[in-house]
Every structure is written in structure tokens, then in C-alpha cells.
């Protein structure tokens, strides 16, 4: 049995060294027909709106994507029956209209003409506007079992009672928005105050762009969004998850030939804080 023990320990050692191994490989992927990619936002804040149109490309090419600047873009308020032309200004790369203010409960139509192709979308601004109350910085409970102090930035807002509220949160670190938006529904937090953090300090996440230091300015925009917009972001979030057996394109609410995109008519509120922990 003495030998047994020796061998067992030896084998244990060998096995412990074997972890899963990852390697970058070459795969011959097909080249899909190009798609129009539409990202459109209008808000209840006057002039805070944009439409961008870009195109998809083959996987093996680089990450610089073609933008379309010569489209004709309109947004129409379907209740007030007013159309707003969206144009590219001298210093912007996005289609905007400084006069447009989206109103809660109103429906809006997005209308895009690119050469012979027409893309359309309709979205309704949610009736209820939820205001972002504050951002607080707190010590995360992850600290307990990661063995070091982890601070998080939590946007504070209260979900109104009753199901059917959907949120999109966009975060800015020292004025820069480099992270993807986060999204939430009130299915599991109906009527409660949000506790999920957005910013992390010292957690070595892969997207370390979210990490902040003392003195950094953290800002958050809270959008109240329509359900189809939430579904777009939810399915977008699943797009490259390796844990799923059937990855798929996000559920688009923009329609037309060869298009993937989202038209988000939302309310917005924002708060900032200087990190001090």
C-alpha cells in the first residue's frame, strides 16, 4: 500500500497539471451575403438621438466596418404625424435631428432608403419613465471568496410595481463609453431597487475597460425601453456564447432586405459620481 500511495500522489500531480487547453485555429468559414446593420436611438431628451448604418463583412477580414453615409433617413411621430429628417452634421458620423424629442407613449417610425433598398422599423416609447436615482460604490461580496477587496458601482433605480418594464444601461468611465450596454427586465426584480453592479474595481474581468480607480468619473444612462428592444439586446448578448448549442442572430426590430438592427425609442435619465472608496 505504501507504493500505491506514492503512485497515487504522483498521478495526482500529473493530472492537476492537465487543464483544458485552448488554441487559435484556422477555420474555413463561408462568406455570407452582406447585411445592413442599423443602430437607431431616439429619446425624450431633445436632440439626443442617432441612427448609424453599417455593413457586415466576412469573418476572416479585419474589424473595420464600412459605414453608410449616403442614406436618406426619416423618423416619423405616428401620433403627431410629424416627420423628422435625420442628417449627418459637419462634425458627426451619425444621422441626427436636433429638434426631435420622443414622447412617452408615442410610436415612431424609422424609414431608411439606401439606393434601391428600404428599411423600416416602428417602436413605442414606454409609458412609464423610471429615473436613475444615483450611483453608489460598495464593497462587493465577491471579495469574500476571491480573497481581495472588490468594489463595484451600482446604479440605483426603483422598478415600479407591475411587470413589463425593461431597461438598458449604458455606462461611461471618464466620459468614454467603451462597454456594451447592459439590459434587464423586471421579471425577477418587480417593484424592487436594482442591486446589479455595472462597474467593477479590481476584479480582473476580461473586459477590464470597466475597471475604475479612485477619482474616476462613473456615469450611467438609464433607458426605459420597449420589449422588442429588450429582446434585441437579450438575443444579442447570447450571440457568441459558447455554452449555447444554437447560436443565432439577434431578434431584430428593423425590417427590410438583408438587415439586422434595432430601433430604440426610449426615455433616458443619467447620473454621475466620482469614485471615492
Amino acid at each position, binding site marked *: 500500500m505504501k507504493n500505491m500511495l506514492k503512485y497515487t500522489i504522483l498521478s495526482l500531480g*500529473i493530472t492537476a497539471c492537465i487543464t483544458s487547453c485552448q488554441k487559435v485555429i484556422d477555420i474555413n468559414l463561408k462568406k455570407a451575403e452582406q447585411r445592413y446593420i442599423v443602430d437607431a436611438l431616439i429619446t425624450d431628451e431633445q436632440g439626443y438621438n442617432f441612427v448609424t448604418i453599417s455593413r457586415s463583412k466576412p469573418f476572416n477580414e479585419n474589424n473595420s466596418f464600412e459605414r453608410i453615409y449616403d442614406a436618406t433617413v426619416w423618423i416619423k411621430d405616428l401620433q403627431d404625424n410629424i416627420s423628422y429628417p435625420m442628417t449627418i452634421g459637419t462634425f458627426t458620423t451619425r444621422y441626427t435631428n436636433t429638434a426631435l424629442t420622443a414622447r412617452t407613449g408615442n410610436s415612431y417610425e424609422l424609414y431608411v432608403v439606401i439606393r434601391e433598398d428600404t428599411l423600416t422599423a416602428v417602436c413605442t416609447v414606454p409609458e412609464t419613465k423610471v429615473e436613475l436615482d444615483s450611483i453608489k460604490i460598495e464593497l462587493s461580496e465577491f471579495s469574500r471568496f476571491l480573497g481581495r477587496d472588490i468594489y463595484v458601482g451600482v446604479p440605483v433605480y426603483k422598478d415600479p410595481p407591475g411587470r413589463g418594464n425593461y431597461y438598458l444601461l449604458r455606462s461611461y468611465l471618464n466620459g468614454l463609453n467603451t462597454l456594451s450596454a447592459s439590459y434587464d427586465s423586471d421579471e425577477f426584480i418587480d417593484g424592487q431597487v436594482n442591486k446589479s453592479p455595472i462597474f467593477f474595481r479590481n476584479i480582473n474581468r476580461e473586459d477590464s475597460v470597466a475597471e475604475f480607480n479612485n477619482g474616476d468619473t462613473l456615469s450611467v444612462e438609464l433607458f426605459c425601453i420597449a420589449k422588442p428592444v429588450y429582446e434585441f439586446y437579450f438575443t444579442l448578448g447570447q450571440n457568441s456564447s459558447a455554452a449555447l448549442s*444554437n447560436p443565432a442572430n439577434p431578434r431584430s426590430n428593423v425590417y427590410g432586405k438583408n438587415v439586422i438592427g434595432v430601433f430604440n425609442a426610449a426615455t433616458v435619465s443619467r447620473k454621475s459620481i466620482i469614485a471615492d472608496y
Partner: protein
Amino acid sequence: MRTNKPFLYGTLTVLCLLSYLTGQAQKKYTISGYITDAKKGETLIGAEIEASGTKSQYTTSNEYGFYSITMEEGAYKLTFSNLGYEPTAENVQLSGNTRLDIKLREESDNVLEGAGISTQADNSNITDNRMGVERINVKEINKLPVLFGERDIVKAVTLLPGVKSDGDGSGSFYVRGGAADQNLVLLDEVLVYNPSHLLGFFSTFNSDALKNVTLYKGNMPAQYGGRLSSVMDVQMKDGNNQDYSVSGGIGLISSRLLVEGPIVKDKGSFMISGRRTYADLFLKLSNDTSLQKTILNFYDLNAKASYKISDKHRIFFSGYLGQDNLGIANAFGLDWGNKTGSVRWNYQVNPKLFSNTTVAYNDFAYNVKVDLNVFNSTIKSRIRDWSLKQEFSYFLNSRNEIKAGFQSVYHKVNPGSYTGDINISDLPLNYSWENAIYANNTWKATPKLTIDYGLRVSTFTALGGEQPFYTLDANRRVIDTRYYDKGEFVQSYINPEPRLSANYIINPTLAVKAAYARNAQYMHLLSNSAASNPTDKWIPTNNIIRPERSHQVSLGIAKNLKDNMFALSLEGYYKTMDNQIDYVEGVNILSNDAIETQLLYGIARAYGAEFLVRKNKGKLTGWIGYTLARTEKQIDGINNGDWYAARHDRTHDISVVAIYDVTKKLTLSGTFVYYTGNAVTFPSGKYTIDNRTVFLYTERNGYRMPAYHRMDLNVTYQLGKRKGRWESELTAGMFNVYGRENAYTITFEDDPDDPSRTQAKRTALFKFVPSISYNFKF
């Protein structure tokens, strides 16, 4: 595929009449009894009984070791044999009903023969009237190399043609194009909902405790039902009714112990077998604090007791308990487990009529726990079944053996109840009732032709109670919600399931076989994860979700060579399935909104050819299996409604298994598998939105994973018998001996070193995994 139902039922009626007419009345008597292991008293399943004399006859013992053979008055020589046992013969002068219990001695008991070397081989593959059946020799499987040295019948079954594994780190298996949830896994006649441990790395079955494993690849007899693709019928050991014995093993990641013995010698026995893993001990060696605090373990316990009340009555109690725990410190946890229990009563009404009554309970539950100051919650989910099965085996005459019975199962599904900070109400409990009646006759039409035909009629009723029943519009939106009184029949389905299997023996070494089966399935597993996950949802049939149904036809040929040393078989099958279920694309599986709004339905078809060469005796035994197959689905709303390859579609699949007895004490074994890649969805483009690179998909499962191949080796050395009855052996193995990096997943992402590019990354799980274990018995 459309079936001609009148034709089918007409055929069955004619068969019944023919069987009746051919069994003419003469002066006949019955010999019946039990066949057991001489040393342990364990009943032997599928042992062969051959009578030669006035007329030759052949039968096999049933799943309780009982046999019954009816013949004309006269002198007979009865030969009893079972693989791995010495055949024994008895001369009988038949002049009245005779009771004859037989004890067979294990081959290795004979010192002259080397331990474990098979010296005999039979032609049961030729005479077997069923096709697509694999009787798995648990002893043989225990010699095969396995990951971490954990013996695993599910992994062994996937080495057979027509059965596919899901690659490294998965406990799922797929039979003839069927999905993972279409296998009926029975442990002592109780259904096991989740037959895998640790997200599929290990099977729930501790092979120490097992006696017999039979796999039916779709052409199951009428007594089985409820799943489309296969039946894996697993029987636990009864326990030694002669003497106490203890056996066990110490392995790298787990240890096992089995105790068995008589309750009353010759009359009753018990068996208790336990296994506990300590995989998380490895993680304690890690430098990473969070890994150190990871919990990763499982245990299982099998227990069985049997008692022979009299020559006519026997009773069996079986239980299984398995539990898995995953977690990080005490903050997050996922635990799940199966509990099954059954009581069975065998009653030999008369020498020709054998009855078995089974009362069973099973319980599969999982809990997801989050315990943080800011957030604390537990989600519990559970499925429970209560079932009753009554079966009569009537050994009518020398040509007809009838099985008939009924089965009734009450399902209670608790999709989720919440405690803690999630302030939503519990999901409503779901009740349903599944019933079946069946009859099956094995008709020896001529000495060369055996036809096994039967009919199962199954029903399923969704019962009223807490759960809502929805009406959906064409866009899958809920337009009406109705509730019914508890116990009220809301929606019922009935499915006749005819089964037919025929075998024609051309000569003692050559037979042709044909079979047809229709199956229905009422419980469905929904999964959107790449690995088998205990939290995948089991959902019962209701007013919207319909029963899955399949037709399967198969044809085959079996040939033996060199005095049955080599057994060859070739089988082909074609199967169609309807009411197949899949999630809509981009489903939110965590949502509790009506699941019916997230589902799509369609059809599937599978066809293939399976080739098997087995070497059954000599120092070198083993097999080579090859499968050529195709499995496709067509679901409205997926892939534009076009046919697409199912995820487990795999064109070529080869497995080679070899066991070589070098000396009496030393056994080498090896397996090699090669298969072409499964169908998979990869991107065909990319774009950017919301500060991220997003991948563009154009078709479902339009790509293939790279081919998989791997070789494993194992060596078993008997350390010899020391004083007393102590026996021990040392087993050492290597999984993936040449270190092939088989793709577990291929993921797509931005290149972390160059964000202007994207890359494909392959993750491989295991290479060069050594194992060692020490097994003992006394």
C-alpha cells in the same frame, strides 16, 4: 412517412390466429425453474435452455432468471448455458410438470481455465429473435479503459454501432438519430431522468452494483414505452445469498465499496454499494483562491434486497440515491440528484404463468442557490413519478410465449419554486397521467422462423390543477389562459404502438432479421446548452405540446464464423419522427413566461447502416463497430423551414475495442474511436453594434466540427489471492494516449492581442489523463 394502419392491424390479427392454430393440443408438460449462479445465488438473466430429444426446443430465462419450457411427454436432454458460465446438462424423463432449478458455475471458478479468458462462444446473435439489441457484459466493460478510471456503462455503450457519444465531457448518448432525451433509462424498472453526474462527465451508474445491461436500439418489445429511440434496461445485482462478501476500489477521484450477503441463506440477500468522488480535492491544490473554494463532488448509493418467500413468491426492494454538488464557497451552488425506489413481487402462478408487479417511485430534483448579503435566493425544481406495472408472462406452449400487462404512471412536475429575494410566486405544479396496456407474443412459427409481435396502446392525460392551459395565436402569443379543477382531464392522447420483429435462421451461422416499431413519447427535455445540464427542462405533453411519435423499420443480417468465434452483423434502419420540439432562436430559457410561446415544432428523419464484427473467444476478444448515418430535422421557423442536419448528426463513426489476456493475471485493453464531426452552427460573417463585434449566422448546423479520434489503454494486474479469500487487482490506464486535442468547443471572439481582428479558438478538454485504481474483494 404515412403508414397503412388497416394493413398493419390486419397483419397482427392474422399473426395471432396463425400462432393459435399452430399450437395444437397434445399431451404436454412444463419444466420450469430458476437459473442461478452457483456461488452467489444471483439469478441469471438471458441464460439459454436447449432441450434435445423427441423434438428440439430452445428458450431463455427472463429478467428474474425464470424459465419455462413446455414439451410433449418423453425423454430429453436439457442443456443450460450462459456466457461466462460452464454449461450444464440434465437428463429429464418428462411425464408431468417438473420443477428444475439450475445452478451454473462461473468459468473462472475452474482453476484450469485462465481468469477471464472466454473459452466459449454461442450463436445467440443468430437465434435471437430481436434485432438492434445489445446485451452488455458488465464484466467485459469493467476491463475497458475509461477517463479517470471511472467505469462507466454509458461510455461503454457508446462504443457500439448505432450509439453515439457527445464527445468528451458529456454523459448523453444518442441512438439511431434520436435525441438525448429519447432514451428510456431504467434502473430495476424505474425510470431515471438524469443519468449523468457532474454535468455529464460520469454516468449515474456505479458499475460495481450492476448485473445486467440491455440496450434496445429502437425495436423494443411492447412492454417498454414512453421514449422514441432506445431502452437501456439496467438491473442491479441481487446480492450474494450464500455468503457475505465485500468488494471495493480506491481510485484517483473516487472510492467505492460494495457489501453483499445473505439475509437468510438461499432465501434472501442484500447488496449495498456506494461511491463517493473527491474531484474537488484537485482544486484545493490550485493557486487560485476561487478554484480552491470550488465544490465539485458527487456520491451515489445503490441498495437492493430480495427475499424468496416460497418457491412461488419472491420479493425485491431496490433503491438508488445519487447526489451532485457544484458550488463556489457557500455563495453559489447547484446541486441535483435522482432518487429511485421500487418494490417488485414475482409470483409464479403456475409452471406456465409468471407474474411480476412493480411499484416504483422516482424523484429528480435540482436546486440553484445564491447566498450573498445583497441577494439571497433558492430555486427548486423537481419531477416525481409514481408508477405501477403489472406484467404476466405466459409460456403458452412450445411455440408461443406471451407477455401482457399494463403500466400506469402519475407525473408531478414542479418547474420552480422560489425562496429568498426573488419575490415572484412559485411556478404552478403540473400533473399528468400516463397509461399503457400491452401484449406481445414470441411465436416460433417454424424452427427457422421466429416472429415477435405485439401491440402497446399508450395514453397520456394532462390533468387540471394549478397550471394554466394556454391558447396561442399564429405568432405564438397567448390569447387565452384557462384553469381546470384539480384532477380534471384537460387533454388526452392515445397512441397505438405496434411492434414487430422477425428472425429467419438460414443455417446455424446465418440469420436474417427484420423489425418495425412505432413509439410515442410524452415527456420532453428542452435544452439550449452545449453540455448536458441538470437544469434543462423536462416538460410534459399538454394541449399545445403534442406527443412525439416515431416509426422505425430495420433490416439486418447476422453471420458467425469459425465456430462462433467471430460474430458479424449488419443492420440498416430508417426512422421518422414527428412533433419534434425545439426552442425558438434566441430563447430566454430563464424566463418563466409561458414556455409554449418559446417553442417550435417539426419533424425528423434518421437512417443509417451499422456494421459490427465481434471476436468472442480466445486470448484476444473485442469488437470493431462502424456506423454510417444521417439525422435531419425540419422545423418551421428554423433554417427557413428547410431540412438541416441535427446537432448529433455524424456521418462516420468507428470504434475498436480490444481486450487481451496476456497471462492469467495480466490483462491489457484498449479502445480507439474515430468519428467525423457533429453538425454545428458557425458564423459566416460579422458586424459591429453596441461597441462589440457580433457574429452573423446564416444557417442552422451548416458546419462540421473537426473529426474526433482518441485511443485509450488500460492494464489490469491481479495481485493474486492472499490469505483467506482476499483478492485484489491494480488497474492503470491512460486516456487519450497520443494526446489528440479534440475540439470540445470552437468559439469566436475578438483577438485579445489585436482588437482589429477576430479569431476562432478551439478548447480541448483531456489529453494524457492517467488513472490508477486498486480494487479488492474478500
